[in-house]
């Protein structure tokens, strides 16, 4: 967060504490409140810097804004879908530092200093990511709404090096719902990539 850093905290808090001869860990309850003061920001927009698909974005966001809303409404990366907006469907799945997460349950302000990868960040130009190609080749979708989340989740599964037999793929992809019921082909696509990678 640009308003507040560990360095500023140390200067603002530790220096006075040391200057008056106190170890901050040992001060009495009465002194604690005044010494351990934390910088609060919001609720109005505050500067937030995000790294998405290798690009840096300097934004002004309310602290309550989710990564999902920032991606879609401000960065216009609308491949990441808003399905349930409550951590149930997986359509909003993105990678943060290579790990799959629900962007609807992630605050943008808490994502600073981390690498965000969305469905738009998987391909290299016109060259699709192998998982994207596998979903095409195996017909791993019908309406397509859950597909970006499915593909990103499948890439996360590969990053986590999970076992990729049919039962395990179904278990480890269970955080992504598909109302069309394309599960059999989704599992086949993931297993195809896993086989190629082995």
């Amino acid at each position: 967060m640009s308003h507040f850093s560990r360095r500023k905290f140390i200067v603002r808090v530790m220096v006075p504490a040391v200057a008056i001869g106190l170890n901050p860990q040992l001060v009495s309850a009465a002194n604690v409140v005044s010494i351990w003061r934390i910088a609060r920001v919001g609720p109005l927009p505050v500067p937030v810097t995000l790294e998405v698909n290798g690009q840096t974005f300097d934004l002004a966001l309310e602290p309550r804004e989710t990564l999902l809303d920032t991606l879609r409404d401000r960065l216009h990366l609308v491949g990441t879908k808003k399905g349930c907006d409550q951590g149930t469907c997986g359509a909003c799945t993105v990678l943060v530092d290579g790990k799959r997460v629900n962007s609807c349950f992630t605050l943008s302000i808490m994502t600073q200093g981390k690498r965000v990868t969305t469905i738009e960040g998987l391909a290299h130009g016109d060259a699709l990511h192998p998982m994207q190609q596998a979903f095409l080749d195996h017909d791993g979708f019908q309406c397509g709404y859950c597909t970006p989340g499915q593909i990103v989740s499948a890439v996360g599964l590969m990053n986590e090096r999970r076992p990729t037999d049919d039962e395990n793929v179904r278990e480890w992809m269970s955080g992504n719902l598909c109302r069309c019921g394309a599960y059999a082909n989704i599992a086949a696509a993931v297993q195809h990539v896993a086989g190629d990678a082995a």
Partner: protein
Amino acid sequence: MNPIRYAKAAHPTEAMTAVAQERNAHFIAGGTNILDLMKDHVEEPSLLVDITDLPMRAIEATPAGGVRLGALATMADVADSPLVKAGFPVVSQALLASASPQLRNMATIGGNVLQRTRCSYFRDVSQPCNKRKPGKGCSALEGQNRFHSVIGTSRNCICSHPSDLAAALLAVDAVVHTRTQTSARSIAIEDLYVLPGDRPNIENILQPGELIEAIELPQSAHARNSAYVKVRDRASYEFALVAVAAGLAVQNGTIREARIALGSVAPKPWRAHAAESALIGKPANDASFAAAAEVAIRGMRGYGHNDYKIPLTRESVRRALAVSGGTA
């Protein structure tokens, strides 16, 4: 979601102070529970204090042979830990049966044990709920209560505790290490929670601003021989209807130590003490397990839609004991 202020803590005391100072301040780490509740306006904090930079993420062996889990370790980290898998299989199994891979990458174990009930009336602000608004009444008593509790309830609240992890921790005698601005304490996981009684809004003994720093798992034979049985409406990514965490220490075919902890049948993770006692000195066989399972459901009562949980608990206890006793 209501507008909020935000602060990122660089030191535990800073975080604890900020939350203790402001009545409606909350810690946030994984965010999977608090943001969910905020979207439903069940929680409307004025300030979120981000604790994710605090050094509480490590999973380490203790000198006494146990494992210390930093409160900020994610569910995925703990489930995958070789130390946890070897010494406390029930904990790893319970975590892998919880939530989804995405949520397990986000949610921390400190937050997991403090997660709120899934009661649909608690989560719907248009419905009366004593937990949300004390004195308003419990909608579940006469309402849809298929997911609700069959023991430990009161006339004010029959919600169930949803944490798979908490039931598993109960079966391995976990200790919760907490800290406030001025003191630290260690709480047996069983003592962390309180029953609803006349005050369903109070769920645990933690004070405002008290922070869980770590959860310690002491090594034991019954923790090594432990298993988790979870029964749910679908095979994956679903909360439990009934869950059983069991651990058995067996010597020459005789049960020396037993733990039976139940999830999703009580407003807190529920330890079946009498059923455990019934196993001591008995042979580790199905007759003993079946007898203990009968004891485990003593005192249970249903509210209509959830009556099925009582026989389901009995059979799940029997199965969990068989798995942990190696006879399944």
